[in-house]
């Protein structure tokens, strides 16, 4: 009888360990743990150019992740890109004149949305829109401007 029990215990432990590993992969390695961490409210931000920003990119405030990019689409009316930001509900004290910009982590890193809080008394809530934004830096534009500036200097 004890042999049977031992077998059952070992197989049980095997299955449990396998599921623990799957759970670990889901919660600790992938974005499943961060996606569903509580409720969030949605805020829109319009950008002239979103560069390489992708859905699920983090939204940070003072370096702390406060949300995720939920959706990105093109608004044909004003020729701008709209990023829908999901801000976690616990960060409900963000002024509504906050400034959103698209930043790059490191030289080659991924792009994310950085928020700079303003001084307004009213706070962002579900459906608000961030008015002031700064587009992503597109390397070609930067280089182009630099060369144009140099050429101007040379012409003087």
């Amino acid at each position, binding site marked *: 009888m004890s042999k049977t029990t031992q077998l059952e215990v070992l197989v049980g432990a095997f299955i449990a360990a*396998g599921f623990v590993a799957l759970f670990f992969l889901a919660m600790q390695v992938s974005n499943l743990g961060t996606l569903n961490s509580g409720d969030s409210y949605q805020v829109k931000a319009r950008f002239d150019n979103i560069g390489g920003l992708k859905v699920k990119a983090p939204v940070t405030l003072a370096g702390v992740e406060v949300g995720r990019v939920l959706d990105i689409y093109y608004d044909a009316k004003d020729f701008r890109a709209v990023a829908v930001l999901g801000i976690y509900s616990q960060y409900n004290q963000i002024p509504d004149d906050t400034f959103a910009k698209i930043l790059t*982590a490191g030289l080659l890193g991924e792009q994310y949305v950085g928020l700079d809080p303003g001084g307004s008394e009213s706070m962002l809530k579900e459906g608000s829109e961030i008015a002031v934004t700064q587009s992503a830096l597109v390397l070609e534009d930067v280089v182009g401007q630099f060369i144009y500036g140099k050429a101007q200097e040379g012409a003087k």
Partner: protein
Amino acid sequence: MIDWLASLGRVGLTSAARLGRANLLMFAMWGGIPAMLRRPRLLLEQLYSVGVLTILIIAVSGTFVGMVLGLQGYYILSRFGAEATLGVMVAASLVRELGPVVTALLFAGRAGSALAAEIGLMKSTEQLSGLEMMAVNPQHRVLTPRLVAGILSMPLLAAMFSMLGVYGGWFVGVGLLGVDDGTYWVQMQSQIDWHEDIINGVIKSLVFGVVCTWIAIFQGYDCVPTSEGVSRATTRTVVHSSLAVLGLDFVLTALMFN
């Protein structure tokens, strides 16, 4: 020339016949599932010999593969100043490719060859015939629990492999080479997608589980019942399983991540 054509034809015919027998066997084994559910102990025993006994090699290889990934990844990424993405690199390579594939290869060598040899020996010692004459269907009784155990074990083993690999990479990257602990995990979490990466990896390992176990069982069951035949069956199991896993991996990757 004619001889050459004739032998080509013979090879073609025998392979087609073998493929047909393999499919019939698979079909017959699925038919044994209700009977197996009435005797869960049979499945339990097979989960032990197919799954539990394979854990050790999976755990050791997973940890070391992760450590090597951490080391190599760090050296390459640090050249571009992108050490921060070490966690992403380690986790993505493990979850998408190395976890399912290396687990399947090790599984074929450890569990698949044992399955083929065991079934081949049961055949050559007339145990399978004996069961048949005792009015017990050997395909249902002997083969089905092994098939199910193989299919169930593979994703669990692959998940363990990936998890230990992620920790192996963490140990080298964060513990030895000084990558920031928080960065390692946060970058990983932001880049690895639950559905696209984890679920697809699990699907891959399920497919590999079906294929590897099927090949092992078929080779054992279809072998020539002599000691030479059994040894050929084990060799074939490992070779065919490895080729099938690598080939299928390409196809599955192309389908999933295109």
